């Protein structure tokens, strides 16, 4: 049984389509990240699942129970979902313990609050008021509060957006750990690729109210459904090319491509920068170094292909400090299959 099943979900607002035929399935115990630029409809989708927004058509089922259809609209309080909004939204007039206990019945309350505090690593904070907590601590309590009543589904709306970068990495891990320990099924909305890839079991890419690709993180990265997805989820070198049998010819050479061959000749080629290695100018495609940027743990090297009709300026990451300097000529080689789009 799926923890969540959505079919044909549509919603428009002021004549503008916000959700366009969204369909989604999520197995129990998985964490799905909905990734998309701001304004793509991802928050609306989340709020529709939670019951705060009413879609126009479609169905939503949570753990086999229909919560939204033509015939039936369950109010938010009957859907058994936990909701963690941006900035936590802790009840400012209640203590940490009271916040967590808010959705619990009287009998199980104390025990469960303790468990939840332990789960998010906040033992001993029971009596604190929300304004006495840091942003990260507030998010942990918000998660604990959402998990406490054993919901079928946890919804996280950009849960890290208000936090410092330094705090985020640790909190991500902790929250992922807490969700796993609780065996929770969760959906997280984010516009941050790193967040999605580091946390999610599955990623759904959303654009203009549509889910354009739903797959494992690896699949989304290596075989994005189109060029836009490819550039949205990571750096990519995009080139024009021509299919020639089993190979595609492009300024970076004749390369193997994934999937079956295309009958059409002109295609777009997508290469991830890490597929490209930099060697001496003796072998491979000749390029000139136009700029190097040093980041400490890695460096970015901007290149410009020599002898190419296409203006092509890929940027390649290498570990450590840059092995070349501006003006050097280098030879480029592409490893592995590339992805082509008709």
């Amino acid at each position, binding site marked *: 049984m799926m923890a969540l099943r959505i079919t044909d979900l549509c919603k428009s607002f002021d004549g503008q389509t916000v959700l366009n035929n969204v369909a989604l399935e999520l197995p129990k115990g998985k964490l799905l990240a909905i990734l998309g630029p701001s304004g793509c409809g991802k928050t609306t989708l989340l709020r529709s699942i939670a019951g705060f927004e009413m879609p126009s058509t479609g169905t939503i089922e949570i753990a086999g129970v229909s919560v939204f259809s033509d015939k039936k609209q369950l109010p938010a309080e009957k859907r058994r979902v936990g909701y963690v909004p941006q900035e936590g939204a802790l009840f400012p*007039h*209640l*203590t940490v313990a009271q916040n967590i206990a808010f959705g619990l019945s009287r009998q199980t309350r104390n025990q469960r609050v303790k468990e939840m505090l332990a789960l998010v690593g906040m033992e001993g904070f029971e009596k604190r008021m929300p304004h006495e907590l840091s942003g990260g601590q507030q998010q942990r309590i918000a998660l604990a509060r959402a998990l406490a009543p054993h919901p079928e589904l946890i919804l996280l709306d950009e849960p890290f957006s208000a936090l410092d970068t330094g705090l985020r990495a640790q909190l991500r891990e902790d929250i992922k750990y807490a969700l796993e320990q609780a065996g929770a099924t969760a959906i997280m909305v984010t516009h941050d690729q790193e967040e999605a890839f580091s946390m999610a079991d599955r990623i759904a890419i959303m654009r203009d109210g549509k889910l354009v690709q739903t797959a494992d993180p690896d699949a989304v990265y290596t075989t994005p459904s189109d060029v836009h997805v490819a550039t949205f989820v990571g750096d990519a070198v995009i080139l024009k090319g021509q299919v020639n049998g089993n190979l595609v010819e492009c300024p970076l050479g004749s390369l193997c491509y994934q999937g079956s061959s295309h009958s059409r000749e002109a295609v777009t080629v997508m290469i991830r920068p890490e597929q490209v290695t930099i060697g001496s100018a003796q072998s491979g495609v000749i390029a000139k170094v136009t700029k190097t940027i040093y980041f400490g743990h890695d460096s970015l090297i901007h290149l410009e292909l020599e002898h190419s009709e296409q203006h092509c300026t890929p940027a390649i990451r290498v570990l450590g400090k840059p092995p070349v300097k501006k003006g050097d000529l280098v030879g480029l080689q592409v490893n592995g299959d590339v992805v082509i789009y008709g």
Partner: protein
Amino acid sequence: MIGKKVASTALSIVLVGALAACSTGKSDSDEKALTIYSGQHKEVTDAVAKDFTKKTGIKVNVREGSSNELAHQVAEEGDHSPADVIFTEETASLVMLSEKGLLAKASDKALHHISKQYEDANGKWVGLLARSRVVAYNPDEVKEQDLPKSVFDFASAKWKEKVAYVPTSGAFTNQISAMIKLYGQDKTKAWLEGLKKYGKSYKNNKIALDAVEKGNVSVALINNYYWDREAKEKGKEHMNSKLHYFGNGDIGDMISLSGAAIVKASEHKKEAQKFLEFATDLKGQQALTEASSQYPVNPKAKTQGMKPFSELHPPKGTLHLGKYSDGKQAIALLQEVGLL
């Protein structure tokens, strides 16, 4: 938890308040309690009501307000009026109620206590007190011999900013009605326009008198009792102002009545009759005149300290104003002139 405590405390305070508000709700509707709508001064009504309760054991609830306001209210209330007796400053409002058929006849006993000229021809209301229009003047500002022969003369440039008058008082309206009756519309209008131009209007007689006392104006056109009551409290020697009577039958010395009537919708008519009988009888009249510094309508009652009634020289024909008695023409004229 703090929030909850605050909330519950606030709620309980509010609930207690609401309960208290309800408990003061309807005043106890005692079988025999009499409700009087009174436009007379509080002490006057209270004085006679207290003596009445002492004598008869009938409780009295007094609702105070301005006479016209209360008459208006009785008219609005119609058959549902909770009022038993209405006691007004001027008779115009009683005439209006009588015309609308909202008053019951007073008992013969009450009517017999007073002479015919002080009561309604149909016995629908009885006068309880009489009073004279007067000129209160401040001797520091103006000498008595410089005061004019007639109230009409105050409406002139000579008295610019020196005359206080109260266009919104019932007594003033009543005087206007009488003026229209005796001198006609045009002369009255000219006088009002003159007053508007040269006089200073005040919202009530007491404040107008105070203005004279302080010398802010030289004279005030008021009723005698405002001055007499204050003189009684303070002693005549402490008054900065004096009363002037024209003494020649001028309309500035006109006498008017304050009266009472039984409301037709009353459910306590017997008690109401008793009240009118008491108020017109010697004891009631004595209490009324003492509390009000107005003249009794029952000849047996005595006044104290005021200019004796027999020495007054009021104009004739102002006690009953016929078709002008409801004050409508006077109001229309006041509105026309822009004093209302």
